């Protein structure tokens, strides 16, 4: 009972790949849970993205390991003087896994698919400033915006291009994805594995170098570790610090790490007492000792977090500039006393069901208790957590968020009054004005100034106490050669990986 794709072209591609250019070697990757479908415009969950992008699907632009925007399906682009028109020159000779040729119509259809109300893609807001999509010729597409939108190129890197025929189809891609990437979808054994095979029509000569990638679903970390040590799996992406410590004892195993763009945070509800008071939120920051949280919950693998990751070298302000990041229990108590809240403060904190989040919550609970803040931990199942999060049904929460390479992509939706993920109900007109300015100005220096100002305003009194940027770690088995970790956590260069033996 194996679910196989029915596309004839795909099947023949598989056979050719096995027989021809790429070797028949299989790279085995272990992931903790299966994806909730593989439609790149519908499912934004981490494991879906990890499997599908950019292995199956590619976008107009890409993001390399240094977090620079690179060409992908677009070879080059021009931006008009006023910042409102983008003209992309597309790659010629790329084909989809179903055999059809990639051209500007596919790009237009994919963007329309994301924007369409009927498909209801959650990615829409990332490209919502686009007002007009014009196919100039099969290799050229022009996008017109209603206002300058500095992060557009970074946003487009997250919008996969699919064949035009799927524009109005909300279902098909979920189970049988079709893209232009180096690997084509082959089979999906529920709870077992997803297999991708080398796409022989890939436009880069000689790639991919291996014949198959299998993503195995192994729910228990100890099981994945044991299987990895036994050679069942070649790659464990995104492992936690405890796993890394366990595996690093073995000399044959390489642990690659990089500073993660994603971060752990304590969110605070700015619409209910007592955390509606910015002074109280600052006191919370003063009570936290981020370094000891990192030592305890992340086994030291991380750095204290400000609003932006230090990996974003051209944007991030150093955390030493935030006064509230120095733990000061007496100062915090004094601040709480002055702010007129009645002690002890009772706070309900919901916790994302992840070991690091739980450990962070347990350590933070003790640190906040020192300042007279009594935290009740509510560890939730994921559905309950997401629901309470979306409905702002919390005083505080501990969670982890993925990062973005442009500050606007994170700040605007999070801190703008009424922003789509502003579940804190934070509303500060000064911040809103700065955010509006930040996304419309295209001058880099001016933007840097604006975002530095925003970081300083948000760090201590904002609705989010940023906790840590962890180390993103991937365990690489002894057979694997040529793998390079990517700070976004994706498996960006599997096509270049080879296996020894």
């Amino acid at each position, binding site marked *: 009972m194996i679910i196989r794709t029915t596309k004839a072209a795909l099947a023949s591609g598989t056979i050719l790949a096995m027989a021809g250019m790429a070797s028949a070697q299989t790279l085995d990757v272990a992931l903790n849970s299966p994806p909730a479908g593989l439609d790149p415009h519908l499912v934004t969950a981490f494991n879906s993205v990890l499997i599908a992008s950019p292995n199956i699907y590619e976008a107009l632009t890409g993001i390399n390991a240094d977090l620079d925007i690179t060409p992908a399906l677009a070879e080059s682009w021009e931006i008009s003087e006023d910042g409102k028109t983008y003209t992309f020159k597309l790659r010629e000779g790329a084909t989809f896994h179903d055999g059809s040729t990639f051209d500007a119509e596919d790009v237009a259809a994919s963007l329309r698919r994301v924007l369409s109300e009927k498909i209801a893609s959650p990615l829409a807001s990332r490209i919502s400033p686009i007002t007009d999509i014009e196919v100039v010729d099969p290799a050229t597409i022009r996008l017109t915006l209603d206002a300058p939108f500095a992060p557009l190129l970074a946003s487009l890197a997250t919008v996969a291009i699919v064949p035009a025929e799927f524009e109005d189809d909300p279902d098909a891609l979920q189970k049988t994805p079709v893209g232009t990437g180096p690997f084509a979808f082959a089979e999906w054994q529920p709870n077992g594995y997803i297999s991708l095979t080398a796409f022989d029509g890939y436009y880069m000569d000689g790639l991919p170098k291996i014949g198959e990638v299998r993503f195995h679903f192994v729910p228990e*970390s*100890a099981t994945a570790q044991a299987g990895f040590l036994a050679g069942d799996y070649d790659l464990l992406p995104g492992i936690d610090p405890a796993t890394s410590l366990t595996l690093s004892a073995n000399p044959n195993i390489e642990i690659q790490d990089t500073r993660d763009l994603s971060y752990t945070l304590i969110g605070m509800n700015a619409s209910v007492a007592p955390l509606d008071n910015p002074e109280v939120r600052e006191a919370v920051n003063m009570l936290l000792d981020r370094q000891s949280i990192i030592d305890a919950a992340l086994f030291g693998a991380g750095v204290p977090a400000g609003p932006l990751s230090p990996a974003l070298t051209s944007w991030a302000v150093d955390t030493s500039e935030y006064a509230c990041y120095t733990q000061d229990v007496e100062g915090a108590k004094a601040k709480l006393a002055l702010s007129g809240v009645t002690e002890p403060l009772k706070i309900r904190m919901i916790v994302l069901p992840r070991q690091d989040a739980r450990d962070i919550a347990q350590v933070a609970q003790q640190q906040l208790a020192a300042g007279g803040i009594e935290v009740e931990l509510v560890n939730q199942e994921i559905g309950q957590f997401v629901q309470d999060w979306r409905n702002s049904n919390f005083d505080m929460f501990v969670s982890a968020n993925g990062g973005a390479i442009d500050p606007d992509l994170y700040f605007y939706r999070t801190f703008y009054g009424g922003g789509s993920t502003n579940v804190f109900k934070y509303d500060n007109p000064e911040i809103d004005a700065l955010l509006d300015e930040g996304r419309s100005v295209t001058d880099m220096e001016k933007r840097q100034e604006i975002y530095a100002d925003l970081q300083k305003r948000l760090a201590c009194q904002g609705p989010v106490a940023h906790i840590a940027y962890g180390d993103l770690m991937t365990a690489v088995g002894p057979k694997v050669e040529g793998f390079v970790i990517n700070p976004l956590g994706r498996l960006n260069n599997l096509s270049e990986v080879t296996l020894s033996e």
Partner: protein
Amino acid sequence: MMSYFRNNRLLAFATALVVFQVALAVFAPVLGLQDPFAQVIVQRMKGPNALNWLGTDQLGRDVLARIIHGYRTSLLTCLTAVLLALLVGGSIGILAAYYRGWFDRIVMRLMDVIFAFPILLLAIAVIAILGANSFSAALAIAVVYTPIFARLLRGPALVICESEYVEGARAIGASDLRIMVSHVLPNLASIVLVQTSLLLSAAILVEASLSFLGLGAQPPTPSLGLMLSEGRNFLLLAPSPAIFAGLAILFLSFGFNLLGDALRDSLDPRLKAAT
């Protein structure tokens, strides 16, 4: 005769094992243990040593202290669950046996519906609805065990209800409630005692599985299943929390099962041949 003494010794041993563990749970706060909540990061994930006899967990908390406090959580949850199930399920079983007819048929079919549901899934569903904590876990286990008690007690109750002295009580005009409480119930005492002990043993395992899946007591509460669950994430690095928490679950469940088994032999030797 020999067998009688042997069984008595076994019963004494089982009782001692249970009493010892219950006593640990009850007197945990005054045993001079370390603070089960105190995090000493530099001492984290140590194996057994002079300071922490059973080692420490991922936040440097003392495993021994957390296990003994964990007994409290497990026992409280499971006792609540089993007693609740006994109360509800037992009443249903006796009522069904006493009134029989349509009432019996409908109620017992409803019990069958719950009984046919996979145990762990039923518990997971109940907990998912109520939110994960010890009380939900207790309630979930109670729901799972209600049909078991109902089915267990209905059979023997049927026999008693048909007996001559119940008929006699009816003849002299005793009320239904009075008959059930003062005639039927006392005759079920031994089976209730045995089954409660056996089901407690099983409940401890179910509670541990639920906590293992993250559905029982929540951190930082010390709980045996939760320790096993958290410990498994660090298994190859620091096995002691997972190993010792598992052993504690085994001892607790074992004690109650042995007690039930020995009680059954002592209270009703006729049952012995069947087991």
